[in-house]
């Protein structure tokens, strides 16, 4: 276990039914950037070969039919149904919301998804479409996807999204600053954004495809959690390398260790590149075997995806009907 200069906390309570996202007494590093560097430097390096082997071994696990059915439904309920295109229109957001509430109109037993994820200017529209349904509206903010804007602009972006009704904010970290070692800058920015979020949950996008190494993923995960993230998220989906199982493994280990260390339970969101139900189930096995079954809930684990939902619905229909179904049975994006 890594040694961190944290305030001591009560023993972690993981697995209880009433896990809260962020207890008010979140530990924080009130010290300097040097202190932060020491803290993150104390993290052990990631054994990349071991991580790949672990992922590969868990990927071959067979699931019994009943388990598979339950996991398909769980995966559907964990989806942040996402549209993040320059060509998004009100009509697209409306159909996205409709699909979020009732993914398969022909089968009311399909659960609704966790959230819809849109750009800030479409948040109000999405909230209006959804009404007071239990589907959250998540908004990317902070000059998504590059994050290349001044802090004031980023904070204004966040405040507007929250004011428009976003329940969750997906921010991007400043990868340039992180990679040049300006950890304090990254940390302060997350703290500031967290404050701007108010009651909205904060998901911190690490953009692991740009962090290059798994060591960096582990450090960025801890940095984000220390700064107040409610969720850590792999990717924007806008760079070629998005969520990969080893990266998610490292992040799951980070949230597990962070919870043991501090008692604060942080969620993980895998986003980008997850298109098949088979991959989604592999990720859920990874969650269960790494962080534990307590994380198998939409409150603590999410998939950021759009096309994944249809494949989950297809596999679900396959399980139900006993034969493969055609893809155009379900609405496209």
């Amino acid at each position: 276990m890594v040694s961190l200069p944290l305030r001591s906390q009560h023993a972690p309570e993981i697995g209880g039914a009433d896990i809260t996202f962020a207890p008010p007494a979140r530990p924080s590093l009130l010290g300097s950037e040097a202190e932060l560097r020491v803290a993150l430097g104390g993290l052990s390096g990631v054994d990349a070969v071991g991580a790949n082997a672990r992922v590969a071994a868990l990927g071959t696990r067979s699931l019994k039919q009943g388990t598979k059915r339950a996991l398909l439904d769980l995966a559907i309920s964990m989806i942040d149904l996402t549209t993040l295109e320059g060509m998004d229109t009100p009509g697209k957001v409306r159909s996205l919301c409709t699909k979020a509430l009732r993914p398969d109109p022909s089968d009311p037993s399909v659960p609704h998804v966790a959230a819809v994820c849109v750009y800030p200017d479409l948040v109000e529209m999405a909230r209006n479409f959804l009404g007071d349904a239990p589907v959250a509206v998540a908004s990317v903010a902070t000059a998504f996807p590059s994050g290349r804007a001044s802090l004031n602009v980023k904070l204004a972006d966040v405040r507007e999204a929250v004011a428009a009704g976003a329940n969750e904010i997906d921010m991007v970290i400043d990868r340039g600053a992180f990679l040049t070692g300006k950890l304090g800058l990254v940390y302060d920015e997350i703290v500031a954004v967290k404050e701007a979020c108010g009651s909205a949950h904060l998901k911190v996008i690490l953009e692991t495809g740009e962090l290059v190494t798994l060591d960096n993923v582990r450090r960025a995960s801890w940095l984000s959690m220390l700064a107040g993230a409610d969720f850590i998220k792999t990717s924007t989906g806008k760079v070629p390398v998005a969520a990969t199982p080893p990266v998610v493994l490292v992040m799951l280990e980070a949230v597990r260790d962070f919870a043991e260390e501090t008692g604060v339970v942080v969620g993980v969101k895998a986003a980008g590149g997850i298109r098949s139900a088979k991959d989604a189930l592999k990720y859920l096995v990874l969650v269960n075997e790494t962080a534990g079954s307590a994380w198998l809930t939409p409150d603590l684990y999410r998939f950021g995806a759009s096309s994944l939902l249809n494949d989950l619905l297809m596999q679900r229909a396959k399980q139900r009907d006993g034969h493969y179904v055609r893809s155009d049975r379900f609405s496209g994006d």
Partner: protein
Amino acid sequence: MSSDRLDVRKTYKLLINGAFPRSESGRTYEVIAANGAFLGNVARASRKDLREAVVAARAAQPKWQAATAYNRGQVLYRMAEMIESRRDEFAFHVAQSEQHNDRDAQLIVSAAIDRVVWYAGWTDKIAQVLGGTNPVAGPFFNFSIPTPTGVIGVIAPQESSLLGFVSCVAPPLAAGNAVVVVSSTTRPIPSLLLGEVTATADVPGGVLNILSGEVAELGPVLAQHEDVDGVDLTGAGDLAPTLAADASGSIKRVFRATTADHDWAVDPGTRRLRAFVETSTVWHTVGQ
């Protein structure tokens, strides 16, 4: 050649999406000729391999349909060229699989090549024969054109491992369909060799997918699969009625071979070309 040299034996693999995977299940089976000779190990496809093949076919079909008829003809003709250049290899395997002498096997390969060329020539003629303008009582120019049905599942004939195989596979391809074919269970090697040939004949990945395995295992999955638009049950034998019933669940086109259809040497006509096309009719205003 010294006798202590290691045998280098080939395992014949599947053709899915332009690649040659072993079965996802890892299973293989031995191909034994009628005289008891061991002919080789081939992959035994599972229903998941079939699912992958259908996904690949569905993805590849629109582009194959959109290719010009001329281009599809060129690709099929290239396939014939490739068989011709390896005719001795084909003849060897046909002779082994079907227990023919060399001369008969060569004749069968020639017939198979000619059959592919025949269908290659048909690609840009289907529209003239099956389509046309229709006389209508109104100010409309009304015409019908044949369009491909989509993804076609073929249960290849069990006896005729090469000629019968290409006779079933080439017509849906010529019409612009993507094909998922289950080879002859006991005589799969010539068809798997043909798969290796198509990979170098500019046939786009996914347009032709070849699976070797048990018809009893793969047939129902193919026939019930909603994303398969038509099935050719030529090689299904006694299972054909059950498979046809399975196919009805998703309202597929079903092609059932007659006894005469199993005589592969005769002129095939256009029956198989017509089996997997749909007619689109366009009403176009004129004189306004």
